């Protein structure tokens, strides 16, 4: 994903906030549903057909005395059965095989082309403006840096309805930065930069979780992402001013004063 290159402008409760019509959550949910429905149908059909065949053509010959498994004396059909010591050849049924293979191929290809079109959107959402935040993973937490130069760790505070673009790296080992509630995720690798984005439609508390084993603290590497209503988010180009607001907001949130603004809670 590449950013639109728009320089940061004031986001102070502005009515001109640009939104994307579909968030990562929307795209994921839609695609997942389609795959789940089709996958379930295909799975049920194939497995049912398999079990049906295995049952329908089960041998009716009784187990003979002293033998473990017997060949039937006569065949009621013209199928050639495997014989001991033969040079193996294939059985009949190739036409059917290719027909079902063809159907499955078309289905899979269709699904993947559809998925690919959504990937192109995800990779390049092209919003008119976006808020860029740099994320750096470390053992065991996340450090953030806003465009105004303000950096913090622990919580991330962002406005709702705004496209937030993340540039992710790591200062030590490999991590993976994911906010499952917003369907944003990317590897955090030392020396490399990856990116992803999200646009939160609901305010509230989300979790930023590490999804790559990164050492003993990995399991507890879960921190908060706080999404505020746009009008509550007070952006400032001055990092000191922003820091002041940030600290106040964090205190207010921790003491429960912002609970009424939270549509989503952990």
């Amino acid at each position: 994903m590449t950013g639109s290159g728009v320089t940061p402008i004031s986001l102070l409760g502005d009515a001109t906030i640009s939104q994307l019509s579909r968030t990562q959550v929307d795209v994921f949910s839609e695609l997942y549903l389609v795959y789940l429905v089709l996958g379930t149908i295909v799975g049920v059909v194939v497995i049912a057909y398999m079990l049906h065949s295995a049952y329908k053509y089960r041998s009716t010959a009784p187990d003979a005395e002293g033998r473990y498994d017997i060949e039937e004396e006569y065949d009621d059909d013209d199928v050639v059965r495997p014989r001991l010591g033969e040079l193996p050849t294939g059985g009949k049924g190739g036409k059917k095989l290719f027909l079902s293979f063809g159907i499955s191929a078309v289905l899979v290809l269709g699904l993947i082309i559809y998925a690919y079109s959504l990937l192109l959107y995800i990779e390049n959402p092209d919003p008119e403006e976006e808020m860029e935040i740099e994320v750096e993973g470390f053992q065991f937490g996340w450090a953030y840096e806003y465009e105004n130069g303000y950096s913090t760790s622990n919580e991330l505070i962002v406005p709702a309805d705004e496209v937030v673009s993340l540039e992710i790296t790591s200062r030590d080992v490999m991590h993976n930065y994911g906010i499952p509630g917003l369907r944003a995720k990317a590897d955090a690798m030392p020396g490399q930069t990856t990116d992803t984005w999200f646009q939160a439609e609901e305010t509230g508390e989300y979790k930023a979780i590490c999804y790559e084993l990164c050492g003993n603290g990995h399991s507890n590497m879960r921190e908060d992402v706080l999404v505020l209503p746009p009008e509550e988010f007070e952006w400032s180009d001055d990092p000191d001013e922003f820091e002041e607001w940030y600290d106040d907001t964090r205190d207010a949130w921790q003491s429960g004063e912002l609970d009424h603004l939270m549509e989503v809670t952990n």
Partner: protein
Amino acid sequence: MGDLPPKSSVKRWLVTTNHKDIGILYLLTSIVFLVLAGVLALLIRVQMLDPGGTILNDAGYNQVVTSHGLLMIFWFLSPFAFGFANYLVPLQIGADDLAFPRLNAMSYWLYLFSGIVMLTSFFQGATFMGGWTMYAPLNVPAYIPEFGEIGSFATVLALIIFVGSVTIGSVNFLTTIYRMRAPGLRMRDVPLFSLSILLTVWMMLFAFAAYLGALIILSSDHLLSTTYFSLADGTSTDGGSLLWTHLFWFFGHPEVYIVFFPALGALAEIVQTFSGRRLVGRKWFIIAMVLVTIQSFIVWMHHMFLTSINLEIKTVIMVTTIAISLPFDLMVFSLIYTMIKGKVRWKTPFLFGLGALFIFIIGGITGVFLGAIVLDYSFRGTYWVVAHFHYVMASSAVILIGAVYYWFPKMTGKMYNEFLGKVHFALAFVGFNLLYFPMFVVWETPRRAFHFDAGFTIWHQVATAGAFLFAASFLVMFYNLAKSLYSDRMVEDTPWAYTGSAEWAVSSPPPLENFPGKPSFASGQLEFLGRPEADGGIEGEAATDGGMTADAGDAVVAGHDEHADHASWWPVLVSSAALITGIGLSGLTTSYAVWPFLLAIPAFVAFLGIEGARKDGFLPIHGIYMAASFPLLAGFLIAFHAHHGIASGLADAGMYFWLTLIGAFWGTYTLVGMGYESFDVPEPRIAEQWPFESVENTKLGMWVFLGSDIMLFGAFIGAYIFTRFEFGWTDWWEAAGYTSKAVWPGLLNTYVLLFSSFTVVLALHYARKEQKWKTAGFLGLTFAGASAFMVNKAIEWNELYLNQGWTFNSDLMASTYYFTTGLHAIHVVIGMLIVLFLIARTWNGAYMGEDEAGTIEYYGLYWHFVDIVWLFLFPLFYIL
């Protein structure tokens, strides 16, 4: 060496080189590892019983997760499959044994001992705790807690020894399947299980070589403090993390099919037998498998969709990934259609096959989810992945359990209890799905985290219950098989109806020499052509519809006259040296790292003389070797004294140094002993050998081995080029302060090596003409050339390393330079040691004449290869 002791003797199982014995050893050993890894899995599931489980702490949980994965994938799944492969492939293709029986035994022992090194790591503080993928730089000392450093490195070393076992095994199986098929058995006629093994070992050969490269690089960061993944100050390198993901997944993705293919082959045979129908579209089934084999090497980056690879690469990899799923569609349909119009008997092996197919279909469909990159973004690092790959990889375990029931009667001559077999299946199938299906439901659980959201609790508890049910089902199998072994349910040739392949045409268990006569498909049907010896009485029993005939007059059976050896101590002894050295290296410090191996050089030369004198009678060359070992030893002591001081150095050395020393010493002794042992393995005179009719077994084996060595160097050179690109190609030498790095040492060495290649050719020429002294002389010149190369290199390294202080961990340039050219230097030294052995044997009159000169030719192949590698290294490290 001699004949085999009876099976009741312990010695039998230590010295045997027979493929069936080794198959049994593989099966039993891998089941032990299954139980161990299974217990670890149960620990995970107990921890996950409640959201804040407390039976394991963070380091404990990470160790359990890591070693569960490593043990299951490396020490259970593949070796379990190769237990069957060892036992069955020669039987299925009509061979007496594998091409290189001693090496086969060595594969097994290296496997067992690598597993012991792995298990030892638990008692060295802590085993590796960074996941089976071992992502960098969490895998280097800078990021491993101190209490886990030795154990972590031991795990890496265990994997290296394991790869050694795999590589030897791959060479063996490839040579066997290509060169030792019964007459009339074309490649396309090879039974599907053996064919799946052939494709598996092709993948193993290349994939594991790349993995070996990755593991050696990692070891070097541990032992020699090179800086591929973390710099001298402990910070991570810019490219190291991404480099590891490439190296690892280039191996790791083919590994998925390496694990699955043998099971797939077994499944095809089970479905065919119990459906009483030939496999539908057999030809296409094979083509599909071949396609997967090739494609498996171009999909690895789908494990890296969230790394910094760009959209174009993602697109290509998405396409190849989807393309590799389609052949599996075809195979699944082929298996299902085979049941139609069949005589399907719902015996235990078939139930497991059907159950595994059920599981695999779910695993396959959920894999298509992961192929859609947008979904993969969210699934990454979650239980969706865990559930998916267990549905795929553990389905191969389920198939192989079916294979146990299928071939148990063949291997033991006894029938298992059918009712208990079905009970096992019911418990296992229900347990399996209870265990893994809930993981799809609560897929949002982060993978490898030992706490989870309280809302998921019920599903994790169901999974835990399933895990215990699944585990308990195996107890039923153990009881059933143990009881059946002592039952009176005897089995003759085949207990099953509608079997096809040759293993069912011999008695159960098959005799030591496998077949009652020379097996042949020349008439389009398996026949046993009579052997002249008195044991011809068996052949009548191998009855089918009159296909088997004895033809005592046929002269082509002469191949069976030669006495084949079946017993040797050396495989287990050589491998035990790997065990000792492996454990020793795990705790060695950098300053002591190279010394044990330097001491091994005088030891090797001395042993060449001593053992040679014992074997061939005392010759002047043996005296020369014995005498030469003293100045070499003195040289070693002087060098050691200069670095450590002999008295103080040895006093400080510590246990791990001594262990490594003993291991290296023991290794040289046993290798020399194995080299001098005469071990007769007659090649079949008449066999189906397309496409390698004109290449002897050993030569093909050497070619195949060199193929894997190319991959090893490929990994090294690839790592160098990758690192250099990440750094900035043109700034590279300047950054290291070498604006005008001397070219001439490399250029000189290029000429020296080319010269030594030429002298090997001359040595071979004169060996064929039976001119002993000229042969020895040109081998000597080869040795001299190699020595000159090493001396020149030593001067160069001395200047750079000691005088200019440009050490292994100075910078990335030093690490890649020393380590890549160092790997080549090690190849040169090994080549020099082998030449010494060849000279001693030549002196005794070996290798003379067209038929005998082969050994020198095979050595020549190796030596030319080493020279060609240099032709790549020279421009890469001296000119560009």
